[in-house]
């Protein structure tokens, strides 16, 4: 399903990046990093209309030739990025949304671990499993 899942801290450094294959990890580093610009743009534009509950799901950030990049921002400005292959047409918005919800839930569970210091890179096994399950579906 997803070919790359990334969790990015509020300060825009990666907390967790997992690509389905190790070979093109560098590529996804660049892709995800570049997508931060779009995320920031989207957050800023959304932030203007006052205090109504902001939608966490940012939708399609940008399509590239081979991939589609989707974004999601938690209220604490933790960013989730999911990259899927463009050829995968079975994935619709709702599926992506549910993936993000799952990811968010996994992240929150991971954060509940009292030994995890927020801001450190994520090394939780169960979180990794969540991510890997999203990639394998």
């Amino acid at each position: 399903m997803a070919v790359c899942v990334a969790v990015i801290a509020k300060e825009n450094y990666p907390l967790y990046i997992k690509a389905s294959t190790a070979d093109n990890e560098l590529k996804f580093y660049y892709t995800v990093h570049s997508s931060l610009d779009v995320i920031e743009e989207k957050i800023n534009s959304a932030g203007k209309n006052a205090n109504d509950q902001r939608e966490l799901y940012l939708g399609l950030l940008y399509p590239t030739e081979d991939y589609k990049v989707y974004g999601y921002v938690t209220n604490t400005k933790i960013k989730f990025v999911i990259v899927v292959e463009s050829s995968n047409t079975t994935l619709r918005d709702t599926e992506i949304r549910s993936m993000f919800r799952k990811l968010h839930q996994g992240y929150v569970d991971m954060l509940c671990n009292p030994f995890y210091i927020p801001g450190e890179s994520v090394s939780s096994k169960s979180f990794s499993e969540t991510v890997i399950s999203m990639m394998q579906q």
Partner: protein
Amino acid sequence: MAQHKQTAHDFIQCAFSPQVAVLTSNDAEQLCQKNNLSFTQLVQPFCRLTTEAQIKDPNNVLHTLQRLRIGMIDMNCQVSTPLVAKKMMNDTVTNEQPQIHEGSRGNVMTVGDYDLQLSSATPWFEAYRDVFLQTIPPSEHEFLKHCLACIFVVSSSHPEPLAMLHTLSNTQQQQQSQFPNKLPQWFSPNILKYYVLVHDMVEAEAAKAEAVYQSMKSSFGHQSCHLLQINSRSVTAVETTDTSFPDPWGQFLHKTPDNMEGVDYDGSASSGAEEGSFPNKVEEGTEKHAINDGLNGIGNNSTVIDHPLALSDSLPSPGFEDYPSLPSKGSHMSLSSVQSSMTKSGSFHSEKGRVMGHGMCLTASDQDRIRIFIHEFSVRALIPWAERQMRTLNELLMSRAGFRKSIVGTAKKWFGGNTNKTGQVANTATTVVYSKDAPELQMRRLADLAFLFQLYEFAYNTYHTAKRDFNNDHAWLHFAGALEMASLSTFMQGPQSQRVYPDHYMESAITTYLQSCKNEPYAVRATLTSTEALTSRGKYKEAAMQFIKMMSEESDLRAALLLEQAAHCFINMRPPMVRKYAFHMILSGHRFTKSGQRKHALRSYNQALQIYKGKGWDLAEDHINFTVGRQYHNLKQLENATAAFKHLLTVASRQPAPQQNAFLREYLFVYRQLLMQEVEETGLQSNTLPELPLPALDSNATRVLTGARPLQPHDDKTYATGVWFDDVEGSSKNWEKLEELLVMSANGGSLPLAYRPSNALYSNSTDNKFNPVGYVREPITIEIYLVNPLKVAVTLTDVKLLWSFLPTIASHDKPQLITNETMLSAKNNLADEIVQGQVVKEIILQGSDRLPVKMTLVPHQMGELRIYGLTYNLGSHATTFMAPSQGPDSLGVGVAGSHKASYVSTVYVRGKQKIEVQGPRLNGKKEEMAGKMYGPDRRLDLSVHQEMPILQVSFTNFPKTLLCGEVHLVTVTFTNTGSIPLQKLKLASTNPKYFVLGRSEDLKLPANVYSISSNLKDNSAFVTCDRNSVKHVCDIDIPNGVLHQASSVSLPLWIRGNDIGGVHEVDLLFYYQASQQTTKPRYRLLRHSVQVNTVESLSVRAVAQRACKHSSETEHISVTDFVISCELENLSQIQLSRSHVREVCVRQISCSSQRWGVEPLSRTAHTDTKIGSRELLQVCLKSMVLSESAHRPDMYTFTDLPFQNTRLLSSATPCREFYLRSRVKLKSFDLETTVNPPSAQLGPPKVDPELAFESLNCAINLDMALIILWEAQVVDSAGEERTCVGQHHVIVEKPESFFTSYPFQILPKERPPIKFTREEVTSEVIKPAFEVLTQLVSYTMKHKTRQTHSFQQTRVCLLGVTLMLQNNSEADVTVLVDTSRAQQRLSDIQDAAGQALENSTTGFSWVGQTQRQVTMTPKQVLELSLSVSFSRPGVYNINNLAVFVSHTNDVSEMTLQKQTRPSVVSVLDKGHQ
């Protein structure tokens, strides 16, 4: 898009300016060459009109022409072939480099949390753009680049100027008609012809010129003729005059790059592509070069410049991975050959090597004349010509318009084609070919002309119309061109235009160019203009998209430049898209690399690095660093390259192992090159070694050990363990205590004022405020932890410690600091003499490994030694070079021997790394708590002192396992291995109970543990035992008190196994001093720590009971005797194939006491005293009082009770000593050192109850020790049997209770709760223990046990009983004997015995006085006569009387004495017998 010098408007206007061809005669050209310029070049700076001009459009509306620019083209100029064009572009880009001081130029931009240094200007892009537009091949679909006019130039010095002009004109005519494809192309058949006569003011005659001019005017018409007078200054004058006026030509001439063959532009960008191929680079390069040269030579000759699409890319663009070393080098080579041929012809490039300025012969008035010439030409000739042309074209078209409109309009209606939709039609087969003067082309021609002369509104309308036509005809190329120009005309009208800028026109134009026409150059041109237009309107995003769209594979240089512009667009967006900027910069850098533009590539990557750096995007950062490193390396900036590669190694990298290996090798290779280069440059190797990033040192874990490594045990000898790195850190407290004790004892019982415990092992948990002390000629060992952050192994070879040494020499001149860091061999030798350092040949550090490395230094002089670093050769671990069989051996530290090849074959760099230790965090003062401050740590700053004696202690036969209580003899040998005699040898131990050190004489005795005597008779010995002699510290006697160099002393040492089974650790600390007084430190210490495993053997329980005296028995058992029964149990278990005790044989029981001796109960000899496993032996003994004369406080009598024929001397060494040690209650080890326990001073002095009632207590105080000497047969695991001997002690303190040999473990008491309220100190009346009070007096009854009585004669039988009372205490006591039953009244306790008594009283009763009170003196034995009456026969226990004792006179304080054994009387009836 970056900021450009030109505005968008200017740029477009320049890009599309009216072109005019120039044809000069040779003589005119020569005239101009005096100025170092060709004619076109001469006039070029003045081609822009400075004044406004007027033009009428076809509708006769007057327009103002602003700053009209005219492009002049030399007709002879060879139009650049695609290859040449490519080369030119490359050169221009190469030449436009950012200035070196980028910091000063770039402006700092803060975006979010990024601080970026950007250089907003990109002159190389502008230069490229200009060259690109110049060299773009013309196309049939547009007329913008077609020459509108031709200027014919002759000089006045020509003999036949008019004829020459005609010839020139004809040449032009001929070219236009015969070679329509030859460049330049002409706008229309009847172009404007303009005739110019150049007149040299100095050389030629003015009159002749004037005449020729007049005749020119008459033959060509005065409108199209001009006399241009130049060169007012003679060439000779030029040389003398000052030439400081500005050179207007400079900026227009193509700079001839002198350095273009230099390092920064050559095609061999691939040199870093293949690892390891560096040494072969040169040969490979030349090979390729040769081949490609040949290939391209052919290719070059055969390519005829026909069509733009036949462009340079006969050379395929290579893939991403291998850089285009081959093609770019090839193309470069062929280009330069083209170049050289061109320079020969001298038409395009100005000649090389010319240092002269331009326009030297032109005065200011000459320049004005040129300006006037251009103005005249434009206003008088060109503009009117254009007006005329437009008018005719317009009329032509208007006449056709009506007809066309009807046809096209209806056709459209009928077919309803959606062909109007632009660009989307995938009809690639452009079949439409317009004839030269097709109306559609005429339309286009008109539009172009209007556009060139700034009639934008008109142009737009015309383009729009043309666009529709082309669309209908599916003439896609024409269509795209029209779209492009339509959109540009709108843009050029500026903001006052009513129309919005139709960027979708441009969009579809580009798409059409690209997709339908495959005409990339035009697409690029459209992009260039379009993006310029977009950015001038702030539409950065769209501009960026257009740039990215052009990122084709065709030209890497172009792609790189466009991507860079796109990146600039992203950063200019609001809000800026920093990351996209970075990403596109990387892409651009990549393309620059591919096109061989190394400097630009490097710049791009560096720009991007600013954004990726330090943000945790490791992979990306690594990638950039790696690329940057390579680029630096290619540009021979080795220092920067090294720094970039270093980044890859220092950070804990997430790269996979092979990648890291590549990084490491690259780094090593580059670094090595750098070092070699430095050596070449300076001619010398630098004095200081470079610092290396690998491996990481865990500096703070560094440990320093002074002193030699303890010897390993061999044979039956073990050596004192000393101090080594594997010592447990926590045990140092014990050692410190022992040391304190030793120093106290050596110092007469007090600690010296400046005492501080010495230490030999310094780590980060020790107090390192003071310098460690080393001694001359004694090794200092440093343990350093090497950490490899990489996943691949690295190899360190020739590892050495770096140190600096400040000798303390007793001379007046300042000592010189010596270090071993210098590479000069001479100095190094000197350094080696002072401090000898160990060199570790090879260390292989596996990936992610943490390895301790121990290295020693031996100083040979006194002074201050500071260890500050580690030097080594760093190499990658070449697994491929190693034979597979060496795999397991090479793990960890290996001294290179077998696999020396592993480091020989790899590249390595010599460098160093510093060890910096950090002291403990300070937390004392306020500022220390607030900030982070660290104390000093001097563990690496050693002070080397003069030589000291070195004690070596060895033990022979030191057992590892002992039975509990086993006594073992060990010989201990003290040797002085130092060169100075030692004295005052002392020994301290944590547990002195379990060993006895004998004197050297004892060694001469037979090797038995115990001394044996066969004299069985005299079985007691009277020996002085000083309990105080047992201390933690003991002195060791050495003959003469001094142990000289290399001499040794052997002493016996008996060890006894601990009474408790298990593993016991005994720490021994030896103390000694040098024989002559030395400065601080005065003494030295040697540690020995030993672990003894004790196995359960025997357990002894003993109880002493007061002997009961019977009238019938013999005399000598008095009331004071005790019967002692011992239970000896063999606790060991037989375990097969493991060592176990087979049986224990009790050899002897001895008694040691001040008052008591032992005797056997029976006289028969018992020899069967063997106890098997888990068997119990009961032995009963009798104790007897010794004569009073022996009663002295420190005198003990040992009585032996052997079970075999021989007697072991229990009073001899070591039996006596061990016994003594078992008696001594050593104060807890911790307490001994505290001189004044704080509790002693507080509170009122308490009366110790033990002391207060000593006289009473001695009543039950037995103080008798039984020593059980045994012999055990032990079977060890090998099945061999050995006999070992041992002893157990049972101390019977008081009668009637059990004592065991097994020491009771005292459980730590729980602390009482802390009370905060003051407690009332109730002054308790101290009473002696109840146990004591009830046993003050013992009593027995003496009577007949059998009484025959005839109850028929007398009803009552009377029996006399003697009650024997003995006062056990040493005080006067009052005794009350109560025979009545009234005892219950006195006694509060109604015990069970009393009940029984009550029941049994029916048969007998005491007669006579019921109560008797007597007073007894200490130890007095008193007899009282009582009588008892029996009323019937039976068996009676008459012991029912009560004895009350009071040690005071107060009768109410009487205490009932403990009931002793029953006294049984059998009363028989005589009558019944």
